[in-house]
Each structure stands twice: as C-alpha cells, then as structure tokens.
C-alpha cells in the first residue's frame, strides 16, 4: 500500500504543493529534450535520404564542436572559426559521399551501417590527433551567446531560465522550421524525399544521388554543429558527449526513423519524461533513473506502436 501511495499519489501531491518546482523541472526537460531532438534530427535526415543509420551522428556533434573550439584556441577569431567549421563539415560530407557511400552503393544496409562505425572511430581519432582529447570550454561568449539567468517569480517561488537555454530553444526552433519548409516546399527538398522513396525513379528524372547525399550529410553536419555549440555551452566539449547521442535512439523509436516532426516530439517527450521521472519518482528507485528511463519509455512504446508516433505505417499488400 505504502509503495503504491509513493508511486501513484505522492509525486502528484508534491507537484501540486510546489508548482514552481514542477515548472522548473518541465523547463529543464524541455531544453534537454530539444537537444535530443536535434541529434535525432541529424539521424532522421540521413536515414530518410539514404536509408543509412548513421552511427557517427553523435561523434559528428563532438567533432563539429571540437573543431570550432580547437580552431579558436589556435588563434582564429570566433566567427571565422564558425565559418571554417561549416566548411569542414562540408568537406566531411563530400568525403563521406566519395569514399564511403559511393563505393558501397547497392550494398546491404548492414554494410553501410558498419561503415558509419568506421567513420565514428576515424572521427574520434582525427579529432584527438588534431585538437587533443581533453575537455574544452565552448566559446559561448565569443559567439555572443547570452549568459546568466532570468528569474520568473511565480507561485510564491521562482523559476529560473538560463539565457543560453532560451537561446538554444530559439535556434533549435528556427532551424527545425527552416528544414521543414525546405523539405516540403522546394525542389531540393522534393528531390530529397524522392530519393528517400525510390532510388531508381529518382535517377530516372535526373536527380543525382551523389549530390543529394552530399546535401543531407552537410545538413546533418550543420545540425550537429548547432547541437554541439549548445550542448557544449551547457557543459563542455568532450568525447563524453557521444554517449548522450545514444539517447537519440529512444527518441527515434518514439518518433519514427523517417519523421522530422517525430524526432522533435520524441525528443521533447524523452527530455521531459526523463527529468520529471528523475525528480519525482527517482528517489523511489534510489535515484539515477535518468540514465535508463528513456530506454524504458521507448521499450514500452515499441510494444504498441512499432513504427513510432509519426513513422510511416507498415502496410504490406500480400
């Protein structure tokens, strides 16, 4: 009885007693979720267009952030470093297309998947070699990202919003909105979706697969850079970030591997679920449930909707 009370009643009573704390937890979850969503978005972009599950997406986040910080440490002005990093991500996209995707075209998916493993370790090695493996501080103030917090007095307490989190939320929203319009309404967006649906039909209307792959990998690289800057500004830039990228997996299961809105909603659900779970139910399990709760949510979800929230329904005509 006592346990049931602790699970089903007590947390909600706590929420009611301290709504400001609830709001604070929700906000933290929202921001974390947004960053999960951005990582998941990188996965979805590449998966949609080339059917490749890009294991290297997480390391691309680290690599992009590391390049930015590393270039700045070598004396390059912040915004020039930002431009150069975008250039590096473009070179990476071209190199991946030339050296990985093109030679492996028409190979089974599992081979391409393994190739992205190889890419992961290559990028780890390259990053450490060039910029060193020690954690670094994101050049947030040099990029004019805001610092400090805004306190909002409410419910007799206050909710604290970190300005960097607000900036992250704004940048993420703008980025997602731009991508959504780009995908839905433009020639290249249409070409991307076309390639996702049928390679041979896309070829027959003159869409160049190679060009499309460069575009998606580059876009995923830009998304990775944005994620890396924001995540790096909240903690720091180190290879440990890669672990966080694995959180994108439950997000993808929740949202569906092929859906951009799915990645966003999935990210937010996981982010908020995680924080609320940790804060209100965590003590019951001796804390630390944040590290596995996301996978639990995904597992339960998988039982009922294997295609995800927004994934294409799997219908086979027999």
């Amino acid at each position: 009885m006592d346990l049931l009370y602790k699970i089903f009643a007590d947390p909600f009573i706590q929420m009611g007693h301290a709504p400001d704390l609830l709001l604070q937890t929700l906000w933290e979850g929202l921001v974390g979720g947004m960053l999960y969503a951005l990582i998941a978005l990188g996965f979805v972009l590449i998966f949609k267009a080339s059917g490749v599950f890009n294991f290297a997406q997480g390391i691309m986040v680290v690599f992009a952030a590391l390049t930015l910080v590393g270039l700045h440490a070598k004396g390059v002005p912040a915004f020039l470093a930002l431009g150069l990093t975008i250039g590096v991500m473009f070179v990476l996209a071209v190199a991946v297309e030339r050296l990985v995707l093109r030679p492996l075209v028409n190979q089974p998916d599992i081979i391409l998947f393994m190739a992205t493993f190889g890419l992961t370790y290559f990028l780890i090695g390259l990053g450490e070699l060039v910029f060193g493996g020690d954690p670094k501080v994101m050049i947030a103030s040099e990029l004019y990202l805001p610092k400090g917090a805004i306190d909002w007095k409410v419910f007799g307490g206050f909710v604290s919003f970190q300005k960097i989190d607000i900036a992250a939320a704004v940048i993420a929203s703008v980025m997602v909105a731009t991508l959504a319009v780009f995908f839905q309404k433009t020639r290249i967006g249409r070409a991307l979706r076309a390639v996702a649906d049928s390679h041979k039909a896309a070829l027959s209307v003159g869409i160049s697969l190679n060009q499309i792959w460069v575009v998606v990998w580059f876009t995923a690289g830009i998304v990775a850079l944005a994620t890396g800057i924001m995540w790096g500004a909240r903690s720091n830039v180190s290879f440990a970030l890669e672990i966080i990228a694995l959180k994108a997996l439950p997000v993808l299961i929740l949202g569906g591997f092929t859906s951009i809105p799915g990645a966003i909603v999935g990210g937010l659900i996981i982010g908020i679920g995680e924080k609320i779970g940790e804060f209100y139910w965590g003590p019951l399990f001796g804390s630390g449930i944040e590290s596995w709760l996301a996978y639990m949510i995904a597992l339960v979800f998988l039982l009922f909707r294997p295609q995800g929230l927004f994934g294409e329904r799997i219908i086979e005509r027999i």
Partner: protein
Amino acid sequence: MRAPADLKIAAGDVLLAVENVSLSFGGVKAIRDISFDIRKGEIRAIIGPNGAGKTSMLNVINGFYTPQQGRITFKGKTRAKMRPHDAAAGGIARTFQNVALFRGMTALDNIMAGRTLCMKRGLFWQALRFGPAMKEEVEHRRYVEEIIDFLHIQHIRKTQVGRLPYGLQKRVELGRALAMEPDLLLLDEPMAGMNLEEKEDMSRFILDVNQHFGTTIALIEHDMGVVMDLSDRVVVLDYGRKIADGTPDEVKRNQDVIDAYLGVAH
C-alpha cells in the same frame, strides 16, 4: 493502319541508335550483340518473350546498366555508356515495369519531381523559398497542372500515390515522365495489369503524346493487339538476341518471330 506514320518513318532522322550492344551479369548474357535504332517522332515497340532482354535494353538506354560492349548514339553523340543523369538531362524519360513512384508524396509532388532538371535556382533561394525560387516554383506548377489536365487526374492531385489504384499510379508515372518534356519516352509495359478500359485510356494517352507533343516513344508491351495498333516499327528480342525488326505487319509474318513468340503454345 496509320498512314501518316509511314511517311514519318521515311523522313525521320535517327534519334537514338544502339550498335552491337552486349550486356551480361556474371555468366548470364542478358543482351547479345543487339543493334537497332529509334527514329525521331515514331512509336517503337520492343517485344519478346519473358527474359528476352527487353527491360535490360531500356536500362542500357537510360544508363542504369553499363553494357560490356557496343555503342549508344543519342542525338548524334556517341558513347560507350549512358549515365542516368546524362540520359535524363539529354531528354530521355521513362516509366517502370512495376511502377516506381515516390509513394510518400502526392501525385502533384511526384509530377513536380519530374521538373527537377528544369528548375535551376540555387540552394540559397531554395532554402528561403523566396524571391526567384518562388516565382520559378509557380511557373513549373502551371506546366504540371497542364499535364494533370491532359491525363485527367485532377481529382487525385493531392492524394498520396501509395494509396492510388494501380491504373492511376501508372498514369501518374506517365505524368512524371512527361513533366520532363522528354525527346524520347521509354515506357516499360505501360499497360501491364490493366483492364480493357484502362488499356484503351492509356493507348489514347500514348498516341496523343506522340502526335501532339511529337515525343518519340519506345515501349515494351506484351499485349500484341496494343503493340500492333500503336507502333510504327517493332523490334523483336528472344534470349537476348534480335530476331526481327520492321513494321508490325512484317514482324507478324516473320517465321522466327512466330516460332519464338507468337506460335509457340505455352
């Protein structure tokens, strides 16, 4: 049957010629030393029993397959192989045997995808969907609406093509090919799996495309009635070899063809 067509043949220049093309997959010889040509403005049928190499031939023409031997001359330019992008950019459009549409997209978007090569605005404007790119999008949309009217598929333009019945999917696929404003249209079994009424509709569209737009058409088809009615000239393949080439009447009387194809009871 179609008197003006005969005149056209006499006058027509060669639009595409394949010479001594051979293609094999491992030990399997799909195409053996085949030569034939397609003249400007004609409807050219490629027929033959299953496994004769017809689809392989189309795949060679639009660059999906690279032949081991032979040459392809298209619009006066000779090359050892086509690349799909060159073929599309040069004005070769095609449809597929089992329909290859972008299933997740609407009929309208599918046909718009056919305009890809005609749209040239840069990525920057594209990303903003603004200024010149917007104007361009509107212009191409107008052209696509004309095709939609022509094929009588106004009612399904906003429908996801994956949900459409097969006959309509084939029509959308034809629309996508037409959106490319092709000089040469390759149709791989445009009437497979259709009922009589749908076949009649499709035949009419093919004739209209040929006559009104002057598009040269090469088609693979199993329905002999359709082939004999529609086409100006027929090339017959069997086991990867060419066994006959000529007008429908000539081909019908050819003993090899009768043996290999028409005459043999299944």
